[in-house]
């Protein structure tokens, strides 16, 4: 979580400084979801991320140097710097990619889970998606197939209350989001997305079920994005008060308070972790700034696999 937070703060700074091209969506506030779930995954397990995806990339073990290189449009990035924030793929760590199409990666995760099942690899796949996806047909279709085929996949909804400038309640019918999963008899539960330990516990159960051949799970994680929809968004549609209240439950602070209370860590230790994270992130970011952009002949590279 510390690395994700430091990462996103740095991304924000770099973006505002004009160093990052394109559309960038920040993950600050939602760190517990990516961190809690990925803590339960092996390197060979799969995740599929979305447009707000830096947190997943970091939590799944992504290389900070390559991540910054990609964001800054440098040829040393994961995609030669041609993908940017919304198109980061990390095969070494089973990351099937961030994506610019809302809901677009949901079936990718389930498809990877299908391969894992058919080829008996024991891998598990996680589909991360926002609350906006709750109203997309492709989510329902994928859940149905995951259920009938008992696929080792976790559907992890990061419910931050908004899809762009539209509040979820205005566009999402039903009494309980969990009913969307239950309609397919998929075990579906609400999790506190600001509490990394709760996230991790829920993920552990779901991963165990998946690996044990018991099929998919659906976790609905209540969380909040501190930033605008994308960096440039001023958030006039959202109340400052609400954000303030959610910040009280900030995932990093919450964990810190717990660890200190039960004496698992001291403030100094925690500060050291945060400082280390910041240093690592700063080093990667600074390093990336010095790298080369792709050359013109790299435009056509990898159009087709040979």
């Amino acid at each position, binding site marked *: 979580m510390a690395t994700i937070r430091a990462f996103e703060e740095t991304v924000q700074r770099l973006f505002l400084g004009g160093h990052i*091209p*394109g*559309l960038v969506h920040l993950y600050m506030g939602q760190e517990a979801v990516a961190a809690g779930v990925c803590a339960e995954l092996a390197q060979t397990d799969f995740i599929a991320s979305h447009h707000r995806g830096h947190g997943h990339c970091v939590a799944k073990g992504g290389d900070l140097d390559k991540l910054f290189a990609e964001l800054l*449009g440098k040829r040393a990035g994961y995609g030669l*710097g*041609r*993908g*940017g*924030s*919304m*198109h980061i793929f990390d095969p070494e760590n089973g990351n099937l990619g961030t*994506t*610019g*199409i*809302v*809901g*677009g990666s949901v079936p990718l995760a389930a498809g990877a889970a299908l391969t894992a099942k058919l080829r008996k690899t024991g891998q598990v796949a996680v589909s991360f998606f926002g609350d*906006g*996806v709750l*109203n*997309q*047909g492709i989510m329902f279709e994928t859940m149905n197939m995951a259920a009938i085929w008992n696929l080792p996949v976790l559907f992890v909804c990061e419910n931050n209350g908004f*899809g*762009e*400038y*539209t509040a979820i309640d*205005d*566009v*999402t019918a039903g009494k309980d989001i969990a009913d969307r999963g239950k309609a397919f008899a998929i075990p579906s539960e609400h999790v506190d997305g600001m509490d990394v330990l709760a996230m991790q516990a829920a993920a552990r159960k779901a991963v165990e079920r998946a690996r044990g051949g018991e099929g998919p799970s659906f976790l609905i994680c209540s969380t909040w994005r501190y930033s605008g929809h994308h960096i440039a968004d001023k958030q006039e*549609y959202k109340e400052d008060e609400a954000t303030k209240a959610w910040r009280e439950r900030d995932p990093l602070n919450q964990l810190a308070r717990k660890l200190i209370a039960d004496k698992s860590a001291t403030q100094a230790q925690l500060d050291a972790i945060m400082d280390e994270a910041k240093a690592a992130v700063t080093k990667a970011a600074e390093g990336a700034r010095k790298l080369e*952009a*792709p*050359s*013109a002949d*790299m*435009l*056509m590279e990898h*159009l087709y696999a040979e």
Partner: protein
Amino acid sequence: MPSKQLTVKDAILEGLFEEMARDDRVCIIGEDVGAAGGVFGQTKGLFEKFGADRVVDTPISEPAIFGMTVGAAMAGMRPVVEVMFGDFITLVMDQLVNQAAKIHYMSAGGYRVPLVLRTAVGVGGNLGPQHSQSFHAWVAHVPGLKVVMPQSAADAKGLMKAAIRDDNPVVFIEDRTTYNLKGEVADTDEIVPLGKAAIVREGRDATVVAVSRMVPMALKAAEILAKENIEIEIVDPRTIVPLDRETILASVKKTSRALVADAGHLDFGVSAEIAALISEHAFDYLDAPVTRLAAPAVPIPCNAALEPLVVPNEQQIAQKIRGMLNA
């Protein structure tokens, strides 16, 4: 004629205002089109003026949104439905092609489907491979659809009004990179008919058929070439379907040379149809092969160094024309 300077974006918005005020069957449907005023500000003020019943915010459900728009049109509304990025029309192709485009035909005129599918395209700003594409070649290939691609403020407004009043499904493709270009727009109720090309600049040496944002590019190229005593004629088809074949062919027959410029992908793109048309029907008039300029066949990178390489520019237009004249 009284007129004012407007940007392309505001001209379209004014067209929407006027048509909504004129006909209460006209409504706006899409994601974040209401209080938010559209992600590009392209529906700004409509919600305040016409209310939530006429400016409908939707969930992120493109296939069903579009399908419902078709049903709403069959039942008597005249919706303008927005697909936020041109890349996302991939999600509505079934309802667009298998329903909207064919219902008037299949019902032998029993049902009309008067709707406008409005979408924004355009390479620029490093939005990357999933937020920069334009599939005008696809929709132009589908019988029953009309396809509009404006580039100037006056045309954008007049074509939007015509599209709304048309009784067929019209795909209205706006290039974001033209949104802030300003132009003179009449204060009166000017309609630009669908199917009429415009000669944007007259010239004797070669014809450039320029699609949407390629028109401003071609105009810049014309300035460059004029200094070399080369005068190009620029034809803006304005609507891809119906395509004003007569105007295009008449121009080429006059100049004997043609370049087709389009910001979409080259291969199997809109430029191919126009080039094939000219090559076949102006064959005896041509002094040089019809050439094409369009985006190379590659995903559009999110990279400031590479993105410009996938947009044809004025220098390339000028170079192609010079090559043609020296052939």
